[in-house]
């Protein structure tokens, strides 16, 4: 049996972790710059802007979760890799694409929205709840992608 199937499956896990993680790091980085700007002038807002900065970090966690499920599914975590056909491996790779791609894009844009929302917290700290909702809206689409990726990976017969 060719090992191409397991290669494709691992590629899927890598795509999920890499792209979603990259999206989160970009997003957290953007929001972190804005948070640093506010804390430079007003350190008392540290806790509030830190929460805002962390919001785009979830995509990376989602990617990691899908990566774990894939590794577990193909038996790599248990020590014995399953014998996968190339078709099955490709199916797993395709299942990982939603969280990978959506994680990358939504992470970046959630970071930008968080940075803008940090501007609200800087001027009106009492509006923190409302300010947090704007970046949280972007999260919806990362969750949808996560859902599809998990459903697809878990339902592929191995």
């Amino acid at each position, binding site marked *: 049996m060719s090992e191409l199937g397991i290669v494709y499956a691992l590629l899927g896990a890598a795509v999920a972790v890499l792209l979603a993680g990259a999206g989160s790091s970009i997003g957290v980085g*953007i929001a972190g*710059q*804005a*948070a*640093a*700007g*506010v804390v*430079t*002038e*007003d350190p008392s*807002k540290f806790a509030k802007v830190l929460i805002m900065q962390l919001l785009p970090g979830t995509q990376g966690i989602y990617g990691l979760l899908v990566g774990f499920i894939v590794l577990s599914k193909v038996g790599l975590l248990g020590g014995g890799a399953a014998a996968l056909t190339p078709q099955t491996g490709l199916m797993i790779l395709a299942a990982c694409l939603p969280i990978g791609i959506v994680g990358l894009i939504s992470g970046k844009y959630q970071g*930008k929205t968080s*940075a*803008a929302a*940090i*501007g609200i917290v*800087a*001027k009106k700290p009492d509006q923190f709840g409302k300010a947090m909702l704007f970046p949280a809206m972007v999260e919806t689409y990362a969750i949808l992608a996560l859902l599809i990726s998990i459903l697809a990976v878990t339902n592929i017969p191995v």
Partner: protein
Amino acid sequence: MAELYTYAVARIRALEVALFTSSTIEQLMGCKTEEQALQFLTEKGWGDADTPLNADAILTREREKIWETMNELGVDMSIFDVLSYPNLFHNLKAAVKEVCIKGEHQAAFYTDCAIKREEMLRIVREKDFSKLPEHMQLAAKDAYETLLHTKDGQRCDIIIDRATLDAIYEAGQASKEEIIRDYAEETVAVTDIKIAVRSQKTGKPLEFMKMALAECKSMDVNHLAHAALSGMDAICEYLTSIGYGGAAEALQESASAFERWCDNRMIETIRPQKYNAFTVGPLVAYVIARENEIKTVRIVLTGIQNDMPEEVIRERVREMYV
């Protein structure tokens, strides 16, 4: 790179909280004596612990703070060049007069400029105009020779003022930043209106206005000059027809209302930057807003110093950015 200004804009947002609102200015106007007003300003964080309790020292320190903050933001400071043109050209004007007319005019120089008093005086004295920025060279030479040969100080002023407007407008046109383009356009347009109004009041000829008025997109300066020749009503009519109805209304109200309108117009232009999170716009807007704030505080303090009635001060108080 949209993220280039993320840190700077967020920091500016935090600083905007400390900008004076209209109600803070009202509170300042409520102070009965200058000492009370200065005390109020120091309580609001104006000046430093070692700044003497006098208006000039506090306001000068606040102006310095603006540029200290901008320097700390780690952005390319050349984006603010256009804001310094009026002061830079003013220093040129002061140097030309000092060299040609003789006599000390140290107080007439701005100190926070790229070219300091001594260097500007050396350039003019040695006619080393090539050391000036390109947009200043021709005007400097022209103004120097005009004043030297004709002793006509007003003509010298017009040459340099016109060069200032042209430089601002060109910088605006060349800039990729919307805020700089808007600032340049509004500055030139509002200054043209001021020139037309003053020319009408002092009965200046068409040639004078053609020399003083700078071209801009918002208005046809030729039309404005001819309107100024016809009278104040013609100016108001023309201004209303091109969307400057507020200026016409202010002109009909009083001279100080018109001056206030000119500054308020700039604040209106920069106000959308309050909602911009990633460009240089909020930074430039903050500098303009701070300068407007300092100018307004100076007006109020001058009013209190001279026991002016509250309504007279109120008529001159500018709109605040926040």
